[in-house]
């Protein structure tokens, strides 16, 4: 009797799940309320647990090993990440300015403001290439903002956003892509994630273009998300392919398995890359 009623309960719960799934698959507008609420609440909770874990870890490290040095080191690392990203941005801006100087008589573009954020969690679904950062809509973060590290592009912010947390889709993810150019030839293509090893592919590059392993792949800025000039990765393999296009494998510049501090580029990409100073 009890077993039968338990099985009935299973059927009812399963039916409930199917109804929930059906409702979401049919509706195409907006996010489910339960999703944004759960994300918002849990991000707070996760920040707290991360804070406690970090507190214990840093307390231990400071007391028993390197009193005070850990804190300085963390600050310096954050600063170095900021400065390296800034330097990269400056270099990109400078390179752009050099070309524009000749054509448009010194048209400098303003660097976009950035916001440092800590990676506080990953996506609980196994195999999902997303991370959660401790900055959200209250800090000015919006969906589709680019996220970079000291070595290059990491990914972009995706919804739903909570006031103090946001989800970042990594560039190596299955559905991730970015407009790209080859550093030497300047030929443009699209870098997409989801490949096995290396996880990035550069597509739409004609067979006629000479692409050698070791060449850097940069953002083109034409996708409206990533500002131009940031390093996406390095060409690892380049072979002539079918349909007149090369098969190019790209190793990402950033090791996404060890993300600690990232930078969110707050300005609109088009503005940051090529706006005129007023």
């Amino acid at each position, binding site marked *: 009797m009890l077993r039968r009623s338990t099985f009935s309960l299973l059927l009812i719960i399963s039916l409930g799940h199917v109804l929930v799934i059906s409702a979401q698959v049919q509706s195409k507008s907006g996010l489910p309320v339960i999703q944004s609420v759960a994300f918002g609440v849990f991000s707070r909770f996760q920040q707290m647990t991360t804070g406690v874990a970090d507190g214990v870890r840093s307390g231990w490290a400071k007391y028993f090993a390197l009193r005070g040095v850990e804190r300085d080191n963390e600050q310096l690392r954050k600063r170095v990440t900021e400065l390296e990203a800034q330097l990269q941005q400056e270099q990109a801006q400078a390179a752009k300015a050099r070309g524009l100087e000749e054509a448009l008589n010194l048209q400098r573009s303003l660097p976009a403001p950035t916001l440092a954020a800590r990676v506080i969690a990953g996506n609980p679904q196994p195999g999902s290439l997303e*991370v959660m950062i401790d900055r959200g809509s209250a800090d000015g973060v919006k969906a589709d903002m680019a996220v970079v590290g000291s070595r290059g592009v990491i990914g972009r912010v995706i919804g739903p956003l909570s006031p103090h947390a946001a989800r970042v889709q990594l560039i190596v993810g299955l559905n991730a892509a970015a407009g790209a150019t080859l550093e030497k030839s300047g030929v443009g293509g699209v870098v997409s994630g989801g490949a096995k090893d290396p996880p990035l592919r550069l597509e739409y590059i004609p067979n006629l273009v000479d692409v050698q392993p070791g060449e850097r792949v940069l953002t083109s800025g034409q996708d409206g998300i990533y500002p131009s000039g940031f390093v996406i990765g390095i060409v690892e393999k380049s072979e002539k392919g079918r349909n007149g296009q090369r098969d190019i494998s790209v190793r990402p510049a950033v090791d996404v*398995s060890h993300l600690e501090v990232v930078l969110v580029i707050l300005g609109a990409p088009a503005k940051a890359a090529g706006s005129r100073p007023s």
Partner: protein
Amino acid sequence: MKITAVIAVVLLAVTLQVALARYMIGGRFMFDLVLVGVVFAALQWGPVAGMLAGTIGGLLQDALAGGIIGVGGLAKTIVGYFTGQIGTQFVLTRPRARILPLAVASIVHRLLMLSVTGLIDQRWPNISWPAMLGETGVNAVCGLIAFLAAEALPDAISRGRMSRRSSLSRRQW
């Protein structure tokens, strides 16, 4: 069955999964600690507990993952129920004996997830057997650690109480 204990196990599993998920990005193996928690609850407290743990854990995981809510919930509810049924049919008191149901549950859960996703997308997804077996192995190791810890915890607590009592009685003498 203790509802609070089931909820506590599930919340602990989800928290650990979210906290550790960032370290498995780019790694060769995946793991699903929420599933380990569900199987633990099912074997410890029976099919209703497994079902409850599966529903709560799966829905929470779905909501945090950003995908379609209910897919993981459905898979984990079914797995939790049947694992609980197996737990009541066989004597699975030793931690090592619980590894086999956990391994089977891992594979069934992944296949259920793929099936539901395939039905939604209207196309059968590619199954990566090495990845699935890798996940099963890591889940089994995590489960063994959790089962051993759960077995050792009551003994450790009672030993602590006993030592406190004996020290008190010595003081009286």
